[in-house]
């Protein structure tokens, strides 16, 4: 071992010109191994995919509010297309927006900067992971244009609908969908190994386990959860692919298969997946709250142990998605109990955030608004989950709009609010420019108002029994009540408001890029190591001969007896 390591040191002598040579456009933007560039690639690919997913939502919500309307920009939505739109909206928003943006983009950007090293431990593996991810996104997009259109069996892809082309009527679309999803998992497995290893092995000298910023912990725990839960679904994806293309019958009951098996494989991954995307958003929130409340994180270790508890319990709750799928009622009892238990550590985290805010000197900058909105809105999502986790209530609520509103109240705060929180927080570091606060606030309030206007009405329609997979309620007068149509129209108006508000985000980007104030190294007086680098950080982040050394935890704000209210991690006493 010693001989080989000596070789590495030697190889490193050549790296003095790290980043100083001119790179071609292709090498710089398409083939870079720099973690910050890969973070950009993940982020903007994710945002691009979110625009597609958002457009799909616009199409089917217009159809639901005004059945049979000629949707501007799309045309008439046919029933098969409606299914494909709904399916791919869900797939894209979770796998191609929430995952790449929250874990891959912020993980790539923040982990090396926050733990004080120059790059990820495996930069080329990192690049490969993005390329595989991009390939998976292209396959998914291509699947919309094949004969019979994209896959329409919902993002959960329950067999037998998904397993047999004669049911799903999308021969190519469903196979391409499963290939794209499997490739996307492979990309995130590679990325996850990189995140975990970097955070474990490449911390700055002096940075002990409990000196690691909370967001890094969160991304690491999320990556471990992902790694431990996704395996059965990868195997399940292979089996589903075999069912679709080689005539096996793993999941098709008409030929001796077991459709419930897929539900187990899917939700064994699918439920931890909620926490995979939730935890990074929690981490970003924690960073922002501490920085803008100028206060030490309340109960760092408690927060950490709550996170571990969440991670472990998340493996024992999956069957609450299957209460009416015909599982043993005794099992439903057990999963009801575990599901209610998991709300305890999550509630603990929320209380710790609120305790951190208590007595702080709060500044309502845009990132802080997003972080506070995350707490408030996610709380609503969590509380409504109690109804669905209890098997008795779930029998009524299952597959209604109540479920839909519930998980959008968890996923929208996670993905959309979490993304904007992290993006506005690190924007000065990423691009060296300050964002415009006024435009940021208009964007914030528009998005939040729109979001609530979409899903609060849907809680009511769901509680009145609206089934979530109906293309046109006029066809099922016995299943619905005519007065609910107003609520559906209100929800669609909310969506239009939310989409329109994104224009302010776009304007903000253009204004800030062209005329934004130049960002100082440490615009918010933060403690973590990312704020010690120039904005934007150069290739290699820190001076190679002067890597940071860490002396204390990341949240030492307002320490009595100091001239400033912050105390950077790398500042000697």
């Amino acid at each position: 071992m010693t001989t080989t390591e000596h070789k590495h040191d030697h190889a490193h002598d050549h790296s003095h010109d790290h980043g100083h040579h001119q790179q071609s456009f292709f090498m710089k933007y398409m083939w870079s191994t720099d973690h910050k560039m890969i973070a950009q690639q993940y982020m903007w690919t994710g945002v691009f995919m979110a625009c597609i997913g958002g457009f799909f939502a616009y199409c089917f919500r217009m159809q639901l509010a005004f059945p049979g309307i000629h949707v501007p920009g799309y045309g008439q939505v046919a029933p098969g297309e409606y299914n494909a739109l709904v399916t791919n909206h869900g797939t894209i928003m979770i796998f191609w927006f929430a995952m790449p943006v929250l874990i891959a983009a912020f993980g790539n950007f923040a982990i090396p900067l926050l733990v004080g090293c120059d790059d990820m431990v495996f930069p080329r593996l990192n690049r490969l992971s993005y390329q595989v991810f991009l390939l998976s996104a292209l396959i998914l997009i291509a699947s919309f244009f094949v004969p019979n259109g994209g896959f329409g069996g919902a993002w959960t892809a329950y067999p037998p609908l998904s397993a047999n082309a004669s049911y799903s009527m999308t021969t190519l679309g469903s196979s391409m969908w499963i290939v794209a999803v499997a490739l996307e998992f492979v990309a995130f497995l590679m990325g996850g190994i990189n995140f975990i290893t970097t955070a474990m092995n490449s911390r700055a000298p002096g940075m002990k386990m409990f000196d690691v910023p909370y967001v890094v912990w969160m991304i690491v725990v999320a990556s471990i959860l992902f790694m431990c839960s996704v395996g059965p679904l990868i195997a399940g994806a292979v089996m589903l692919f075999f069912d679709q293309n080689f005539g096996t019958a793993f999941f098709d009951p008409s030929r001796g298969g077991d459709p419930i098996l897929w539900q187990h494989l899917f939700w064994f991954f699918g439920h931890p997946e909620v926490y995979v995307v939730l935890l990074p958003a929690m981490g970003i929130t924690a960073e922002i709250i501490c920085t803008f409340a100028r206060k030490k994180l309340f109960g760092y270790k408690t927060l950490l142990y709550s996170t571990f508890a969440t991670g472990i319990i998340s493996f024992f709750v999956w069957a609450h998605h299957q209460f009416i799928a015909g599982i043993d009622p005794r099992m439903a009892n057990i999963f009801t109990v575990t599901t209610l238990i998991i709300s305890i550590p999550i509630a603990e985290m929320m209380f710790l955030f609120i305790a951190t805010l208590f007595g702080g000197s709060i500044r309502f900058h845009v990132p802080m608004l997003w972080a506070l909105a995350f707490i408030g809105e996610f709380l609503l999502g969590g509380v409504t989950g109690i109804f669905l986790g209890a098997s008795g209530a779930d029998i009524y609520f299952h597959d209604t709009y109540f479920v839909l509103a519930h998980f959008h109240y968890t996923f929208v705060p996670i993905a959309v609010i979490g993304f904007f929180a992290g993006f506005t927080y690190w924007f000065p570091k990423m691009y060296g420019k300050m964002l415009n606060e006024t435009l940021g606030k208009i964007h914030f309030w528009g998005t939040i108002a729109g979001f609530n206007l979409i899903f609060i009405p849907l809680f009511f329609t769901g509680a009145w029994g609206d089934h979530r997979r109906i293309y046109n309620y006029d066809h099922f007068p016995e299943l619905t009540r005519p007065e609910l149509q107003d609520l559906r129209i209100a929800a669609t108006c909310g969506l239009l408001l939310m989409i329109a508000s994104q224009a302010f985000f776009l304007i903000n980007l253009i204004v800030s890029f062209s005329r934004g104030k130049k960002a100082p190294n440490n615009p918010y007086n933060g403690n973590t190591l990312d704020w010690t680098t120039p904005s934007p950080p150069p290739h290699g982040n820190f001076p190679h001969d002067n890597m940071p050394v860490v002396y204390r935890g990341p949240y030492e704000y307002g320490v009595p007896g100091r001239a400033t209210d912050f105390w950077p991690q790398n500042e000697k006493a």
Partner: protein
Amino acid sequence: MTAFTKPLATLRHATGMPTGRLALWWLLASEIVIFGGLLMSYVMHRIGHPEWANQAAHTNQYIGLTNTMVLLTSSLSAVIAHRHAQLGNGKRAAQFLWLTILGGIMFAVIKFGFEWPHEIAEGFIPSASGFWGFYYCAAGLHAAHVIAGATVMFIVSLDALKNKELQRVELVGIYWHFVDVVWIFLFPLLYIAK
């Protein structure tokens, strides 16, 4: 393209374990869950379908046993290669890795050249029954890992030949052992349990 230089991050080891080995264990952890999910599904189906034993009776346990021997023996040369890598003799390490790759090739030839064509000719195609679906799916996924492992091993051996990155000889060896272990689960579950 300018030559790639490893970042400082790769060379740090705050846990005391070299980065490559740490990452390899995480990789294996993720692989265990993939095969674990597949095999658990299979085992639960097998318990639920006692009649699958009639199908399983048609697998050829002698070919299975031969392949077990081939694969396990190929691990021996991977261990010897690691020993030579530790001693700094990259050339010998590469040669022993090639011996391991040869074992992997033999495994693939026996499986894809003799065993599967024979079974397919007898009508035991993946869609023949639930058992054969699992049989081709599990063994095929495993064989894909053998081929991938052998490919990576070949790339590592080319570096080792030039005495570069010798620590990777151990890592690819650990991966190869893992592929062995998966087969040790597959062999009794698919061939012996009847």
